[in-house]
């Protein structure tokens, strides 16, 4: 149908057809995609079957040896465990914080722009710099937080120095960083809920704010919340900056997170074949998480 209108135009562009023009326009992007994304990603998979080390001549094909070593590697198991605990702490907490802040801000007209700006501030701040500020705040002896705790007669943990606390402290910084981001996404979801539904729910007997939240807000916010959950999980599983700045995985590997472990294995120890195997596992985990969560979306979005 559209093709009938085409020839007149085609006459004016005699040198290339639409298809040729489209490929020409896409060519730079396609070339860059192949060179910088697709080939390197396939190369990671290929490298993971070798014992390649930068600077050493010749790499051997070792089959699944790297993967077998990963299974035996206590440090890697520790890193995966830490990452699971970390994501399990950061994702729910920063989603809950984002939801709480969004609901509180939307519950009234005053201070909307002001509070939204403040809670969003960490998103545009450089984490390396802010982590340094947190490190001073949480310094075991000269930090204001512990000074306040001392004044209240409470215990003063060594926030980044003790293996019991370090993951919690880093997690707290990540929650601080992600809450405002989630808040803005959730606020966008809240604005999309038609006002009449609240009035209708009230007439139908939903008198309390909690009843209205349960009957209207929560079900209609479903798709937004699943989206926020996916993003937050992926953002927290990739945490690197705070670890690299503050703890380098210490003390005693208590704050080794997967991306930092990959970085160290690949770029400090230069065992790139082995690090590539870790990367493949990391990518598989990220893809699996996305798949599980999108499956949940499909089930949830249709409101049962």
């Amino acid at each position: 149908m559209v093709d009938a209108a085409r020839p007149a135009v085609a006459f004016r562009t005699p040198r290339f057809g639409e298809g040729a023009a489209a490929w020409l326009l896409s060519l730079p992007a396609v070339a860059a995609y192949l060179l910088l994304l697709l080939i390197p990603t396939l190369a990671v998979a290929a490298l993971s079957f070798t014992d390649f080390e930068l600077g050493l001549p010749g790499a051997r094909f070792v089959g699944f040896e790297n993967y077998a070593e990963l299974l035996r590697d206590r440090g890697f198991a520790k890193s995966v465990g830490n990452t699971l605990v970390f994501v399990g702490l950061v994702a729910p907490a920063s989603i809950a914080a984002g939801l709480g802040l969004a609901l509180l801000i939307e519950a009234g007209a005053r201070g909307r722009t002001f509070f939204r700006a403040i809670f969003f501030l960490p998103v545009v701040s450089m984490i390396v710099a802010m982590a340094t500020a947190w490190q001073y705040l949480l310094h075991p002896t000269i930090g204001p937080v512990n000074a306040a705790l001392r004044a209240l007669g409470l215990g003063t943990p060594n926030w980044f120095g003790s293996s019991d606390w370090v993951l919690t402290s880093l997690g707290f910084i990540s929650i601080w960083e992600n809450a405002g981001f989630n808040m803005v996404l959730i606020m966008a979801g809240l604005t999309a809920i038609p006002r009449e539904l609240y009035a209708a729910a009230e007439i139908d007997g939903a008198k309390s704010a909690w009843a209205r939240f349960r009957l209207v807000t929560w079900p209609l916010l479903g798709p937004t919340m699943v989206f926020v959950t996916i993003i937050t999980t992926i953002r927290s599983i990739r945490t690197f900056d705070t670890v690299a700045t503050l703890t380098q995985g210490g003390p005693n590997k208590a704050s080794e997170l997967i991306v930092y472990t990959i970085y160290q294995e690949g770029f400090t120890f230069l065992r790139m074949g082995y690090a590539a195997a870790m990367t493949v596992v990391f990518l598989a985990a990220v893809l699996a998480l996305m798949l599980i969560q999108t499956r949940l979306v499909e089930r949830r979005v249709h409101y049962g």
Partner: protein
Amino acid sequence: MYGRRSWFADLPRLAILGICAAVVLLPYAWMLAVSVKPRSEVFSAALSLLPEVWYAAENYGRVFAEVPIGRYLVNGVVVCGLILAFQLAFALPAGYALAKLRFRGRETLFAFVMLGLLVPAHVPAIPLYIAFANAGLLNTYTALAAPFAISVFAIFLFRQFFRALPDDLIAAARIDGMGEASIVLRVALPNAWPAATAFAIFSVVAHWSDLFWPLIVVTKGDLYTPALGVLYFRAEEAGDDYGALMAAATLVTVPLVAAFLLAQRRFIEGITMTGLKG
């Protein structure tokens, strides 16, 4: 949400928000405070934010004297600028082609774009590093910027945006004798500003603060990005001189935070609209 309320009835809500805001602002307040305090006050663990002796000149002076912080900031601007320029140059025409042109392979191409969205930037890092090392390109702007020249997210964003562009507009341009390339430049591009601005903010925020990749490909001080600069100053020069360290942290944080406070709505729109890539 449920109509206007009196100040009094609104007070509990504002109080809770106020306390949360104070917690969020805590590191900013102390970063600024410590950056103008002398050493003795920093180490006294006092809870007062304001310094007894004003020590700003000494702390900030020490940063400028000991590290080329201006150079780091310029590097940050150059790298972010290069990345953004290439991302736009690659993604705008591709996004237009995917949205408005019919061609064989379009669905496959778009499927690859969606596939690319799933891959975190850490995944291709090892082969890219090996390639840059073999090409002798470590410690160059090329190594810092090149891996991010392609943004599948930008292609996806512009494709969605251009789909909303009226077909009549493009048909009219074709009748005027414009080729597809000049349609991109003279019809699509001028209409793409909202999407381009949003993407630009997202991209600059992400790459100004990035640590992972610069840490891998840069070992020489004159190519340090702001994030590397702070890390280096922390490890090598500042020691336990928190005053100077916080002065350095303030200097690298201020540019984006100031831009954010000036164009708050655009920033929030840009980063959340592009939130998909996180």
